C-alpha cells in the first residue's frame, strides 16, 4: 500500500525548473532511496511533500492527505532536512523539550530518543558546539520524538562516521521492519544499496526510474545502474 503519493508534481524557481511532472509512490513498511545528482530536485520534492514549498502543479500526499492537513503531523511524519536547523545557544535537551511540546509528545520520550541516537551525555550541552554528525543524530532524535509512522530524511548520512553510518542503516531497517516507512535521499550509493528496498531515481527534476533495488541490481551494482539510467536520460 502506498503511503506517500506524488502525482504530476512541478515546481519552478525563477528560470530553473526544479521538478517536472514527477510521479512516484512510496510503499508502507519499505525503505525507499531517493537518488539524484545535486540539483536533481530531491530536496525540493521533499520540501513540497512536507508543505514547506508550494508546488506549481500536482499533489504530494502522506496517508492520503497533504502534510498541512494531517491532524498530528509530527505523529505521522518525522523529518530531517538540514543539520543546521538548530539554535546554537540552546541545549539539545532544551531543543527536544520545545519539539516535544509542539508535537504533543510525552516528555519522557526525550531521554529515550537521546539514548537511541547515543547523545545522552551531550544532552545538556549547547548545540553550537555540536559536530555535523551530532547534529544529524539530534535531528533524528527530534524526528523520532513523537513515534511517527513515516520518516523523511534528506542526506542523513552526511557527517556520520562509519560507525554512525552503520547505526543509521540498522535504525532505518529496524524502523521499516516494525511497519514504518522511510523515504531517504542520499548521494552515497554504496550505503543506499545496503539499506533500501526500493529506489526512485531523479534527474533534472524528472523521474528516471522507480524500481525495487533487487531489480535494478540484477545485472550489476547500484552505481552502474544509476549511471546508466541517468546517462540514458541525459542523451534523450
Amino acid at each position, binding site marked *: 500500500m502506498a503511503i506517500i503519493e506524488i502525482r504530476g508534481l512541478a515546481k519552478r*524557481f525563477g528560470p530553473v525548473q526544479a521538478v517536472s511532472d514527477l510521479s512516484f509512490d512510496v510503499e508502507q513498511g519499505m525503505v525507499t532511496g531517493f537518488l539524484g545528482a545535486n540539483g536533481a530536485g530531491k530536496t*525540493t520534492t521533499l*520540501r513540497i511533500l*512536507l*508543505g*514547506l*514549498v*508550494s508546488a506549481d502543479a500536482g499533489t504530494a500526499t502522506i496517508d492520503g492527505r497533504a*502534510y*498541512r492537513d*494531517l491532524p498530528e*503531523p*509530527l505523529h505521522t*511524519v518525522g*523529518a530531517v*532536512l*538540514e543539520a*543546521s*536547523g*538548530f*539554535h*546554537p*545557544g*540552546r*541545549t539539545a535537551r*532544551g*531543543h527536544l*523539550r*520545545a*519539539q516535544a*511540546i*509542539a*508535537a*504533543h509528545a510525552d516528555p519522557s520520550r526525550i531521554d529515550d530518543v537521546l539514548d537511541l541516537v547515543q547523545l545522552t551525555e551531550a544532552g545538556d550541552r549547547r548545540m553550537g558546539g555540536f559536530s555535523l554528525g551530532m547534529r544529524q543524530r539530534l535531528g533524528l532524535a*527530534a524526528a523520532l520524538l513523537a513515534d511517527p509512522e513515516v520518516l523523511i530524511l534528506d542526506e542523513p548520512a552526511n557527517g556520520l562516521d562509519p560507525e554512525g553510518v552503520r547505526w543509521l542503516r540498522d535504525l532505518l531497517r529496524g524502523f521499516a521492519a516494525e511497519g514504518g516507512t522511510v523515504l531517504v535521499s542520499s548521494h552515497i550509493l554504496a550505503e543506499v544499496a545496503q539499506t533500501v528496498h526500493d529506489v526512485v531515481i531523479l534527474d533534472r527534476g524528472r523521474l528516471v526510474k522507480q524500481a525495487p533495488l533487487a531489480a535494478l541490481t540484477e545485472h550489476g551494482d547500484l552505481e552502474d545502474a544509476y549511471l546508466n539510467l541517468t546517462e540514458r536520460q541525459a542523451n534523450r
Partner: protein
Amino acid sequence: MITEIRTELLKVRTTRLSYGLLATGAGITAMFSILESARAGAGGANAPDPLYTTSGFGTVFSAGIWGLLFAAVLGVTVSTTEFRHQTATLTYLATPHRNRVLTAKMAAGALTGTVFGLVSFLIAGGTALGFTLARGYRVPLGDATMARFGVGHLLAGALLAAIGVCLGALVKSQLAAIVAVFVWAIIIESLIGGLFTATRPYLPYTAATNLAGTTLGGAAFGPAHTTTASGAPLPFVAAVALLAAITAALALTAAATTTPRDIT
C-alpha cells in the same frame, strides 16, 4: 494555540539572548533613572525639575522607555531567530499553518514584553521613589497615577514586543530589523515629531512611552526632546487602540506577504 504559545515561550526562555536583552534594557533603565534622579532639582538648563514636582518625578520615569525599546527588540528576535538559525523548517513542520505560528509568536512576544515593561517600571519607579523619599520629599503622584503608569508599562511592553515580532516576520533579517527599531524610535520619530508636532501623539513609540507615563516629547531625542508636557498625548485607551491597530496591520501584511513564502 496554547501548545504553539507554550512552545514559543519555551524557545524564548531557553536562549541566552532573551536574558541578555532584558539585562541590557534593565541596566540602561537603571543608569538613566539614577542619573536623572541625581540631577533632578540641581539647577542648570537641562536638569530635570525637583523630584517633589510631577514633571521632575515623571522625568525619572521616562528612563523606563529603554526597557520598552528592548521589548520591541526582543519581539524582533522571536521571529527573526527562526530565519537566522534556519529553525523555521522545524517550526513549520510542527505547525504547518503558518499564521498560527505568527499568532503564537505575537502572543509569546507580548507576554515576554510585559516582563520587560514590569522590570522597567520597577526600576524607574523604584529609583524615583527611593531618591524622592531619601531627600525627604512627598511623592507628587497619587496611587492611581502610579498604578496607571504600571499598567501602561505592561501594555506598552506587550504591544511593542508584538510589533517587533511582526516587523521581524516582515524583514526576516535580524540585524536589519533591530537597526530599524532603533532608527525608528530614536531618529525617525524624533524627526517627524519635531517637524510636525501635531503628529506626535500618533507616533507608535511615542504613544507607547506616553502609556508608560512619559510626557509628550519626553522620549524624543535631540531638539525634539522636551521633558515638560508640551501637548496632549492620546488618552490611555486610544493609545492602546492605536498600538493594537498598528500591530494588526503589520501582522496582516506579514501574513499576506512574507509568511507564506517557500522555506527553501
